[in-house]
């Protein structure tokens, strides 16, 4: 009961703060927002449809599908993407949503592993995330995640690369400013995986991290690496209360 009250109070506090924050969606042109909002014109829906088919597809020696264990995604997966990354008991470390799906493949379906940022994994992640479209981001309160969130915060504020810049230099201190012609967003991970016009395809949050690190001429980490999961945990806690967009469109 006490825990629930505390969580509720926390939820209310973040909901109030949500008004001071701006998502990438709110910074986009009316045309791009309309493209995202309309199922028929949102290119990300192609990946969602692919993911829906994969959800039902039997895999591995036992011929088991995701649906075989989880049933209707609309029920079992509602809110999951808004809560991840979460603690994985078996490995004693946090996993992001794509990591969890990849683990389900190998552990429960006995199928071959799916690579982070591979098309089938992006499609499944997009389909699972779709079940949380519009829900407020609600980070997992598991205290075992707290040191990881702190690692992520340290990474976010560390100067890196030949340009000697930290994520926070742009996304905390200069959000709303312009880097050349590009408006700088607050870096809320509200819409991943997302269809990015510049990529001409769906891509995950860890790919975005890689883009920004390469931009400051730093060495990117690997997609799915513990460092990126830590960064994701920090950004999700920073974005608590903001609505999830699935699938998002970005320029």
């Amino acid at each position, binding site marked *: 009961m006490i825990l629930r009250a505390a969580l509720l109070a926390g939820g209310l506090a973040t909901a109030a703060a949500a008004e001071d924050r701006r998502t990438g969606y709110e910074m986009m042109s009316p045309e791009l927002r309309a493209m995202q909002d309309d199922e028929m014109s949102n290119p990300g829906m192609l990946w969602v449809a692919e993911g829906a088919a994969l959800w039902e597809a039997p895999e591995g020696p036992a011929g088991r599908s995701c649906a075989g264990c989880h049933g209707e995604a609309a029920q079992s997966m509602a809110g999951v993407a808004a809560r991840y990354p979460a603690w994985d008991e078996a490995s004693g470390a946090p996993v992001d949503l794509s990591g969890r799906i990849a683990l389900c493949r190998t552990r429960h379906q006995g199928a071959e592993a799916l690579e982070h940022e591979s098309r089938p994994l992006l499609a499944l992640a997009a389909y699972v995330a779709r079940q949380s479209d519009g829900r407020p981001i609600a980070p997992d309160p598991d205290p075992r995640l707290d040191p990881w969130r702190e690692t992520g915060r340290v990474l976010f504020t560390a100067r890196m*690369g030949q340009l000697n810049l930290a994520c926070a230099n742009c996304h905390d201190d200069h959000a709303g*400013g312009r880097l*050349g012609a590009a408006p700088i967003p607050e870096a809320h991970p509200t819409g991943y995986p997302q269809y990015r016009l510049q990529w001409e395809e769906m891509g995950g949050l860890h790919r975005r991290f890689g883009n920004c690190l390469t931009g400051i001429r730093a*060495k990117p980490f690997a997609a799915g690496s513990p460092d990126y999961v830590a960064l994701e945990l920090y950004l999700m806690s920073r974005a608590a209360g903001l609505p999830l967009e699935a699938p998002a469109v970005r320029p």
Partner: protein
Amino acid sequence: MRRLALAPALALAFAVPAMAQGLPEPLTAAPGDPARGRALVLDQQRSLCTLCHAGLVPQVPFPGDLGPDLTGVGDRLTLPELRLRLVDSRAVNPDTIMPPFHSLDGLSRVGARWQGATILSAQEVENVAAFLATLKGGSE
């Protein structure tokens, strides 16, 4: 090696409390060429200047706004002051977001492609500084 050659000049600059004096010694024997400096500033991907600064070259239609407008900067700062800010703006403001264009001090996780290299060469710094010094009065 470049860094070693530069160290005495920087040490001297740091020793003087009035940091505004900058780096009086040119980094190269050949004097800075303002036309080449201007061409480099126009090349946004190479020099990066217009990602953060307006007031440099009217040909760049959407300069960024993370740094101050540099219109007339040649009236406000001397050549040695300009040189110091290009070499390493941290000498003026330790928390600056302006990248150190000719220093490797304290960098971490530099990508393989850029490992061990400064953003601009000594001659490029001289050329850009010479161009900035020509920015007087209103816009170009």
